């Protein structure tokens, strides 16, 4: 039993409002499907966020339709669980996936929480927000019980686990039943492979750069999908890399070295197969960013798909590394007022008074300020 596991395709996402970026997402999806067919797995599992929105552009629907047609011709079934982008948290709403049942797509949802593929159990739960946590735990238990008699068991979820996304998680690792052989996860855009219980828990990550935050993990781990072999005693997982065609560059250049940089980068940009997105941060900007921008645009405008510059003065650069300690507003006010306790008291009382949002208190506040002014004078 060999499975191709992918997730977070986000089809229909028009990054930065660029038509070309939307096409990039389609292209990498189509390549992924071609590669999957070439690998000849027994089935495909898509762990959510196939589309960027629950009402995708027709083009995105068409791309999936054609891809599923090719998989169907190759005799490879696909199981899919809807992710948070695929659904509307609303009564009686349906994910776009249901359009493809005639092409053999098997949707894991309320009506079919699990399927059997030969001797393998494939079950899962669509994305649920944290308020459904209790029901989630209950349903995970039910799935584990239903999977019990099967020789191989796969759990498909589109959720964040605390260990990997500490502040926005819906599940903790220990809440996931340990009895599955493979945990086909989606939602987190990094590539993660871990052992959990008796199996492997893996996030294949997104297939395109959905956010700039993914740049470092893309450089380190690449992007693509997982090929999992469950036939042997120990599961085997192979990461298949599909490099992106369009480069996304992220550079930081001090203003005084701008000329030098422009000279060197022009050649690099010309050599790229696709025009890249260029994020560039120019530091030590002293007076006005407009002329610097004009210069950048003039030199590089035609060579990049989009120029995304940021201009930072020396002071701002320093500002970015501050704010240690409390961000509680009283503490911040107190810190700002420094040693002047009279001023501090005035600031705090004014803050408290005016935070009540009652315009009738304005008089009281101005009286307070005048009084303080008299005292300070």
């Amino acid at each position: 039993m060999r499975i191709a596991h992918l997730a977070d395709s986000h089809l229909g996402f028009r990054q930065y409002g660029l038509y070309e970026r939307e096409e990039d997402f389609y292209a990498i999806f189509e390549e992924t499907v071609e590669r999957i067919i070439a690998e000849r797995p027994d089935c495909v599992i898509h762990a959510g966020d196939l589309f960027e929105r629950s009402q995708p552009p027709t083009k995105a629907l068409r791309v999936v339709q054609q891809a599923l047609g090719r998989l169907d011709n190759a005799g490879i079934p696909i199981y899919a669980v809807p992710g948070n982008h695929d659904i509307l948290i609303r009564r009686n709403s349906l994910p776009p996936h249901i359009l493809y049942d005639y092409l053999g797509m098997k949707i894991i949802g309320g009506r079919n929480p699990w399927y059997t593929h030969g001797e393998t159990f494939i079950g899962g739960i669509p994305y649920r927000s944290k308020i459904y946590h209790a029901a989630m735990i209950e349903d995970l238990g039910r799935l584990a019980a239903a999977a019990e008699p099967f020789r191989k068991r796969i759990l498909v979820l589109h959720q964040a686990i605390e260990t990997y996304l500490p502040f926005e998680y819906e599940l903790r690792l220990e809440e996931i039943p340990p009895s599955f052989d493979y945990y086909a996860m989606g939602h987190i855009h990094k590539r993660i492979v871990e052992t959990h219980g008796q199996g492997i828990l893996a996030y294949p990550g997104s297939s395109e750069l959905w956010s700039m935050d993914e740049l470092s993990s893309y450089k380190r781990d690449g992007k693509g999908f997982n090929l999992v072999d469950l036939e042997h005693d120990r599961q085997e997982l192979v990461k298949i890399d599909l490099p992106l065609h369009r480069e996304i560059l992220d550079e930081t250049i001090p203003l005084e070295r701008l000329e030098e940089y422009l000279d060197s980068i022009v050649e690099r940009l010309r050599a790229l197969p696709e025009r890249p997105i260029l994020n560039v941060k120019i530091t030590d900007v002293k007076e006005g960013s407009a002329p610097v921008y004009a210069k950048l645009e003039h030199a590089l405008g035609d060579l990049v798909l989009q120029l995304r510059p940021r201009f930072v003065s020396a002071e701002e650069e320093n500002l970015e590394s501050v704010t240690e300690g409390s961000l509680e507003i009283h503490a911040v006010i107190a810190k700002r007022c420094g040693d002047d306790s009279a001023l501090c008291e005035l600031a705090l009382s004014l803050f408290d008074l005016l935070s009540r949002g009652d315009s009738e208190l304005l008089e009281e506040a101005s009286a307070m300020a005048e009084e303080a002014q008299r005292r300070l004078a």
Partner: protein
Amino acid sequence: MNAGEVLGRCIGEATTERVQFVSKKMPRIGEFVILECDFGAVLGMIETLARGSVAIPEDIFDPASVEKIRAMEGDEYYIQGSVRILGEVESMKIPRTPPPPGTRVMCAPPVVLMRIFGDPGNGIRLGTLVTQPEVPVYVHTNRMVTRHLAVLAMTGAGKSNTVAVIADGILGMRGTVLIFDMHSEYISASFTSGRVTPMRTVLNPKHLSQTELAKLANIHGERAYVQSRYFRMAYTTAIRDLQENTIGISEFFMHMKDLLDGYLEEERFRDDKTAINAVRNKIEEFEERYEQIIDLTGREFSESLVPGTVNVIDLGAVDEDAADVIVSHALRKILTGRKQYIRKREGIPFPLLIVLEEAHILSPKTRSTDSKYWISRVAREGRKFGVGLCLVSQSPKSLDPDSLSQMNNMIISRLIQPEDQRHVQSASESLSEDLLAQLASLNIGEAIAIGPMTKIPALVKIDEFRGRLVGGDIDVVGEWRRAVEGREQERDARRREIGQMEDY
């Protein structure tokens, strides 16, 4: 008993304090009576009652004989009792001569009782007489505040209600109350005659004395005198630097630690390195421990008192040590603030009644605390400066007897433990043995009020507080049921939503 009804006649030897009587009727303990003496009408209160039968003496040993006697004699019985003489009706002075034997004992008419208890004058309404519910009981506010008050009762006998009724009454007179709220009961209470001013439980080290700060930092002068010396050195220098504005208040503790680090380097303190390090550690521990209640920018506490309201300091979330420091600090500031006002027209321009809950923790019999000292100071000096104390406790036996004896007024509800009863009696001149015996038999909401605030002791059914108090006992069974039902309802609702959203 009906007013003016003759209950019986005095018998035996009478004194100016007490007289025996017999009766055919059945009065109640605590009931007020009039003795029609030859020199004028005297008011008294029935203290003891006994019921007996001449035909059935106590030396009968066979129940069958009793039955025979009863069959012959019927339900014949007599009532014998004693009356405590409270004073002449006209002057409320103790008569110079005892009532003559055979004097008629009559039910006190409400007019007389109304004149004694029911005059709203400058008083606060506590409730009604237990024995004559139509007679309201007002207590004299000035005498209550200046001569202090103790509210003593077992848990659940209505201490909080009593305090709330008194506070509400004071609000009605536009007076000011300060409550140290140990259980967060009053902080969100609502009164019918005024409002609550919540006061932040924060201490600013700038306003704390060196000893208060040392205590919070766990440096005790008598045990750790070396540490205490270095603490004092660092503190006085830091305070001086603060006053000279060479450091800011936010740097205060940092500066103290820097100073101590400086001492470590000095040759002349070479032998005391351990002590200096200990002081430094204790300051750090202190900062961590009291992070919640230390506020370097906090206002002086007495400036935040609002007259005409119930000011509440919520101590529900702080430990006993911190409560001790907060209370003693506040008492010190209030007493000095009032003294300043009386002398120089600065400071706190209004008198106030300070309610101390759990007084046996703040002023315990066996330990010495800072609050204990300041409670006794306020108790002694407060009357001259218009600072009244109201000590509330359910455990009078562990309350400092000196503090308790300074509370000239008492409102005592049900107290069962003999030790508590004795302790209360020894602290109060006006609580007789017989009244004491009543304490165990009081019902919830009933109390004995004694002291200068009431002309004569009274058994009072305290009014039910008409505002809203948080607290009281939790309905455990109800809460359990609600918790489970809430969970089930929540679960069912979520299940329904999931069913509707994942119907594919």
